[in-house]
């Protein structure tokens, strides 16, 4: 009977193996994949039901056709078989049953393959996605390369990756991530190969970095150090890609795998190598910004020191000049003509101006270097105002200016360095005197205000915003030339003396107001100004009320 099928198969060029021995069938099924298994039901009792056990593992891969003319078929068998072929079928019918089953099996196989590809592709997409989010999360270049290698492992499961990096350390580094241990000889060969690959990238043109295989630094990570690779490694399938973005070159990466890489693997590899370049550039830019900032800070400090040294060196010769002029002007060296007296006075006035500028420069450099000492104690602001008014009364008188003090009632003390306050107020008052035409009036006002009641020009909103609680506010109001609105914002900038012919004429270092601002910052206060062109300016500063003093007073009044 079985011979009939054998002939039929051979005639249609199907390969065929025949056996009636259960043991041999089992071995055959283990060794080979069969597309179709023809099972004769007309075997000794129980043979077929027994054979089904060995068929179980192959049931998904192979179609099982049962040849039978019995009407009763054991239930075990019914579950496993794909079709019945009655024994009295004609050859054509048998053949068509075989063909149909074969075709169906082929379709199923194709479907399964497509499914597998889809799953692999989905997995790769997920990996790529997770790598990109990892890339976006760091500005550390070594970590970026680690993420890249991790990603390659997840997506392609490599045997070895050789990453040549020019961007993570001062020198080029070869980062090896290997499944197995690498001997020194193999390592040398890998280094040579990497250097060759790198040079080949630039095709005879000058490569962006020097690279020498003898001095190349290597960082090696081995997953299973118990085993080792030999030179057959170079017969593995491999892929190579530069890590670069436009003209920025960061390194290159080569990947080895014992199995073959598919076209999709290649695409995935290129994508990952390309993807890491952008965050590497961002990280490089970020690092450059940090370094530039550090350099700027260093320069700023150097500048302060320079100013301090220069100012000191200027003082000594200036002293000699001043002294000589003083002696000549005193008449101790003989009588002076009116003209020589006039010019000596001019020289003396300018020497004094120069010394003022040097003092300002020294102050600002000291404040900026954090070296200015402050001696805080409770201060009555009225005392400071009166002192400064009397110190500058000569200057005011020269221009016939009236300086009026309008004192607020019951002003509390402020916690301040009185000398620095005098410096600030002297600066504001002498500015007011300079910029006010002859015969007008200057008012120095002092009042107690809560931060919420302090109003200022919109330019100084930020300045006012930080104030909290109660302040003693001092204003110096003049009837001078005023400051244009667009210049108001820069009134407290260094060297930004508001440019106009008058400011040129009256001179000054351009540092008085910036110094005042810094001094008030040190007092946790604020300084700002209101001004109207040709109507006058009001420079105001606020000092926090000495809270401890108020509490002391309360205690006193309770007692």
């Amino acid at each position, binding site marked *: 009977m079985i011979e009939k099928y054998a002939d039929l198969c051979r005639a249609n060029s199907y390969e065929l193996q025949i056996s009636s021995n259960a043991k041999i069938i089992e071995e055959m099924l283990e060794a080979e994949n069969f597309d179709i298994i023809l099972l004769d039901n007309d075997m000794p009792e129980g043979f077929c039901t027994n054979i089904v056990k060995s068929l179980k593992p192959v049931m998904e891969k192979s179609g099982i056709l049962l040849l039978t003319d019995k009407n009763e078929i054991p239930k075990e068998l019914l579950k496993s078989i794909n079709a019945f072929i009655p024994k009295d079928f004609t050859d054509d019918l048998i053949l068509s049953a075989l063909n149909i089953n074969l075709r169906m099996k082929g379709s199923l196989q194709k479907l399964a393959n497509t499914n597998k590809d889809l799953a692999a592709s989905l997995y790769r997409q997920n990996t790529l996605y997770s790598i990109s989010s990892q890339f976006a999360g760091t500005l550390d270049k070594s970590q970026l390369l680690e993420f890249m290698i991790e990603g390659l492992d997840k997506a392609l499961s490599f045997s070895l990756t050789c990453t040549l990096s020019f961007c993570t350390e001062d020198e080029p580094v070869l980062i090896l991530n290997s499944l197995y241990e690498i001997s020194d000889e193999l390592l040398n060969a890998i280094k040579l190969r990497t250097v060759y690959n790198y040079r080949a990238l630039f095709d005879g043109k000058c490569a962006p970095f020097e690279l020498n295989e003898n001095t190349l630094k290597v960082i090696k990570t081995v997953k299973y150090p118990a085993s080792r690779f030999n030179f057959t490694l170079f017969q593995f399938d491999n892929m190579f890609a530069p890590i670069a973005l436009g003209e920025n070159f960061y390194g290159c990466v080569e990947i080895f795998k014992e199995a073959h890489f598919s076209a999709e693997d290649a695409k995935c590899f290129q994508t990952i190598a390309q993807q890491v370049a952008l965050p590497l550039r961002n990280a490089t830019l970020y690092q450059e910004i940090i370094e530039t900032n550090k350099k700027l800070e260093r320069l700023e400090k150097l500048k302060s020191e320079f100013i301090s040294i220069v100012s000191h060196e200027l003082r*000594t010769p*200036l002293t*000699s000049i001043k002294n000589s002029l003083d002696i000549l002007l005193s008449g101790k060296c003989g009588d002076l003509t009116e003209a020589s007296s006039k010019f000596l006075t001019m020289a003396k006035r300018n020497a004094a101006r120069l010394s003022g500028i040097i003092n300002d420069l020294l102050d600002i450099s000291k404040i900026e270097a954090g070296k200015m000492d402050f001696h805080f104690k409770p201060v009555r602001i009225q005392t400071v105002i009166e002192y400064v008014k009397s110190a500058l009364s000569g200057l005011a008188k020269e221009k016939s200016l009236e300086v009026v003090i309008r004192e607020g009632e019951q002003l509390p003390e402020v916690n301040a360095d009185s000398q620095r306050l005098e410096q600030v107020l002297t600066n504001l008052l002498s500015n007011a005197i300079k910029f006010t035409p002859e015969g007008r009036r200057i008012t120095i006002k002092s009042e107690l205000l809560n931060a919420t009641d302090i109003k200022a020009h919109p330019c100084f909103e930020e300045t006012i915003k930080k104030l909290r609680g109660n302040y003693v506010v001092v204003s110096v109001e003049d009837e001078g030339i005023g400051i244009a609105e667009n210049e108001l914002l820069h009134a407290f900038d260094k060297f930004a003396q508001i440019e106009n012919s008058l400011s040129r004429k009256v001179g000054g270092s351009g540092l008085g107001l910036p110094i005042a601002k810094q001094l008030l910052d040190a007092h946790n206060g604020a300084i700002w100004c209101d001004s109207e062109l040709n109507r006058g300016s009001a420079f105001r500063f606020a000092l926090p009320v000495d809270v401890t003093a108020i509490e002391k007073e309360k205690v006193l009044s309770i007692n």
Partner: protein
Amino acid sequence: MESMKKILIVDDETDIVESLKFVLDASGYSCYTAFNGEDGLKLAKELVPDLMILDVMMPKINGYKISRLLKYDNKYKNIPILMITARSQEEDKLIGEETGADEYITKPFDLDDVLKTVDKYLKKED
């Protein structure tokens, strides 16, 4: 005639020494000068002046050191000392040390102010 008060000026800046000497001489004081700390200290001990004007920054022995050495010595501790300072960074480093100076004059100073200060110490006995 009562002998003139003796003032010792010590500064390595000869121009400054000269202008101080000119003004003080003209006001009836007798001025002695030294141009470095070593000579200044030696002369101070020899002369026992009625007042000293000392520059802070000088080679070898600085003004603070001279002042300190003299003020520790009973023989000289009553000599008033006027210290000339330029507020330099090097000087800042020395600040905080006990100097014993009686007055500080900041460069650039006014000769009139110096004269007034000197008079304050030397003319009160008249």
